[in-house]
């Protein structure tokens, strides 16, 4: 029972982090920088989960992330879910193929995650009959360049979440190195 409570608490903590970071991205950044492209601050959360959890847990978490983010975008929920799932699974595949122990690794994966999110969004919108006529490619690139800057700051916080909820970290050495 206690284990389940800790697991639930862990998931809730990460969802809360997703919510807070996404609101910072959409509201606080907007208040300060206006319509200048913002870093996808919530992407590192999804990347961390993808790198440190089982595939099943990652899939469930991706859907929960989409559920949290849906209220902050006009993007259809289905497309959002597919995009989140695509990013998380890509990160898992990436981890199995390419991996090194460094802060640059999580930065790179987070940046790629931000870019892949847009690509999956573009693909899903195209497949489901709502294609992007003029993708904001410059915005995608700026977002992908800004997102990695947040990752090294956020990962130690996520690791702390895991520590206080007694989660085992399969890639603890990565996050330990950068914290």
């Amino acid at each position: 029972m206690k284990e389940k409570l800790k697991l639930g608490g862990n998931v809730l903590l990460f969802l809360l982090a997703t919510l807070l970071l996404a609101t910072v991205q959409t509201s606080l950044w907007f208040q300060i920088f206006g319509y200048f492209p913002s870093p996808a601050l919530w992407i590192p959360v999804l990347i961390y989960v993808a790198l440190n959890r089982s595939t099943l847990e990652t899939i469930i978490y991706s859907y929960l992330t989409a559920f949290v983010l849906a209220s902050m975008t006009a993007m259809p929920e289905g497309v959002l879910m597919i995009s989140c799932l695509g990013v998380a699974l890509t990160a898992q595949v990436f981890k199995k193929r390419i991996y090194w122990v460094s802060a640059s690794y999580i930065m790179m994966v987070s940046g790629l995650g931000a870019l892949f999110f847009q690509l999956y969004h573009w693909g899903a919108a195209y497949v489901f009959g709502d294609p992007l006529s003029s993708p904001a490619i410059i915005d995608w690139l700026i977002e992908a360049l800004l997102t990695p800057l947040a990752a090294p700051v956020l990962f130690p916080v996520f690791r702390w979440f895991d520590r206080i909820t007694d989660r085992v970290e399969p890639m603890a050495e990565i996050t330990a190195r950068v914290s």
Partner: protein
Amino acid sequence: MNFFAFDIRKALIVLIVIALPLLSINMKRSPGEEPWYRKPVSATVSVVQSGYSSFTSGVRSTTSMYLKLIGIKKRNLELMHENEELRAKLGAITELKLENERLTKLLDFKRSTNMTLLAAKVIARDLSPDHYAIRINRGTRNGLKKLMGVITVEGVVGYVLKADADSAQVLVLTDRSSAIDGIVQRTRARGLISGKNSSTCRLRYLERADDVAVGDMIVTSGLQGYFPKGFPIGRLTSVRKTDFGISQEAEVSPVVNPSNLEELFVVLNAGHEDFNERFGDQDFGPPLLSKTNPPPSPEATAAAAASIVPASASPGAHDAHKTATSAPSPAAGAHQ
């Protein structure tokens, strides 16, 4: 033998030493004339004294300069600080002035129309750079409902996509999933406005025979009651007619800059307002209605400013507003 037992030489020396001042006193000196034997001493004294004087004067001036520099530095810091404060104040005043101008324009517009409008402020933007939705600080508690029109003084912004208790998501007309019923003001040809990219819209489903030209103003049809009739949406920037097909497609540049939105209005009730009757094409453009209305009083401007505050700060402040009809818009419903 010396009778008095004293040294005569010593006595003489003492006598001479004692007598010297007397001799000196008794010597006659011409005024302004230095005796020859004093000249070298005077010259030396003069040089040394001048040296001392120059030295002390130099030290004094250096010290004074140093002290002044300390004072200047301190004063400079004070002035810099004061300058920064004044700059900040100037920035705030400029911002207030601009806000006042915007609010005056909004109030002017609100007073001149039959519509029931609710002022709102943009608080967030869309998560994705490919979607153009914004969040405003008004929700169902303020009488907002889904599909209600959102406008500024210049023209149409979009419509309410989702309404929560204290905030609402507004789909901007430049979003590709938006759909607003529009007509060409000059020829009354009908079409559907939807977004293309951040600064361009498309006018779709125009009939092939419709008379449209670059520069035509597209206005709202007002059919569903979510927008006033004849309210500006944008101007045609290009018209494309393919060799086959039954319709033609046109590109529209919105009159509202979607990436520059701060304060806007939600149309709670369009009140059968018809802008076609009041203004011709040439009258469009900001400020839309200032031609017919006197400038508002400062009190009225302050009231308008007060109405653009977070919803949480004035719950139920707009309960008295009439709400628009809840019948769903077929045009806007195209988003679903």
